[in-house]
């Protein structure tokens, strides 16, 4: 079929190629571009979260204000991710991080608040898991296509 088109109508073949190019260029695979804001959010919240976890052997009441600010900023990061177009996967990561029914940061803050204090052994082990969890968010963001590479 393609051979026939080539021989009898090269101009039509050219038009098909151009149309295919336009279609391909317009297709999205569902991934947003890299965002410096999102990257910095991930890094900053990782640092703050790990610092907060390290304090969990102390009374929650003594750190309540700081914990509430962290909680708020984690949720802001989730909402920021959710608001970006074609950002479903990063949004899902943040959703897990802030889900009170899961076992990452918001769930942790709730647990600490309920228990008032957590054991050093738990803190030590848990801290490593959360650090790795944030690395998945940061790693995905840093792997996204930079807007500047498209403009070139």
């Amino acid at each position, binding site marked *: 079929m393609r051979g026939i088109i080539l021989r009898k109508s090269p101009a039509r073949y050219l038009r098909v190629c151009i149309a295919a*190019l336009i279609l391909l260029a317009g*297709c999205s695979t*569902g991934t947003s571009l890299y965002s410096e804001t999102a990257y910095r959010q991930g890094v900053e919240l990782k640092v703050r979260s790990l610092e907060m976890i390290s304090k969990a052997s102390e009374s929650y009441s003594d750190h309540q204000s700081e914990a509430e600010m962290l909680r708020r900023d984690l949720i802001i990061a989730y909402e920021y991710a959710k608001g970006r177009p074609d950002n479903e996967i990063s949004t899902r990561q943040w959703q*897990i991080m802030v889900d009170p029914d899961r076992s990452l940061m918001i769930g942790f803050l709730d647990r600490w608040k309920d228990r008032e204090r957590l*054991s050093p*052994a738990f803190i030590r*082990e848990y801290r490593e*898991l959360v650090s790795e969890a944030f690395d998945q*968010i940061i790693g995905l963001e840093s792997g996204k296509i930079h807007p500047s590479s498209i403009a070139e």
Partner: protein
Amino acid sequence: MSFLKRLRDELKSDLRELAIDAGEEFREELIRDGIRFTSGIGDDLTRWGSQYASGELTGEDLEWLIAAKRDLAEMKYLKLKGLKQIQIERLKNALVATVAGSLIKAVRP
């Protein structure tokens, strides 16, 4: 040389240079990560079990750590899935640029 033959030759040459091997690279990373994570779970459970036996961790601590490990597994999967999509997007962009470039070269006298 006809325009179409020129176009075909340019395309073949440019696509060869593109070195499409994204699938293999992703597969290797997935395998490496999977092996690391799987062996990590065993080590973690052994250590946590020992800490539970010694009283350093409570039963609830243990459940919580296992649940967090599960959440981490999902985060890792999402990251790999996202990176794969990005890889496809990069490949698509490169393909568009390559084909467009070939068309332009073929059209030029």
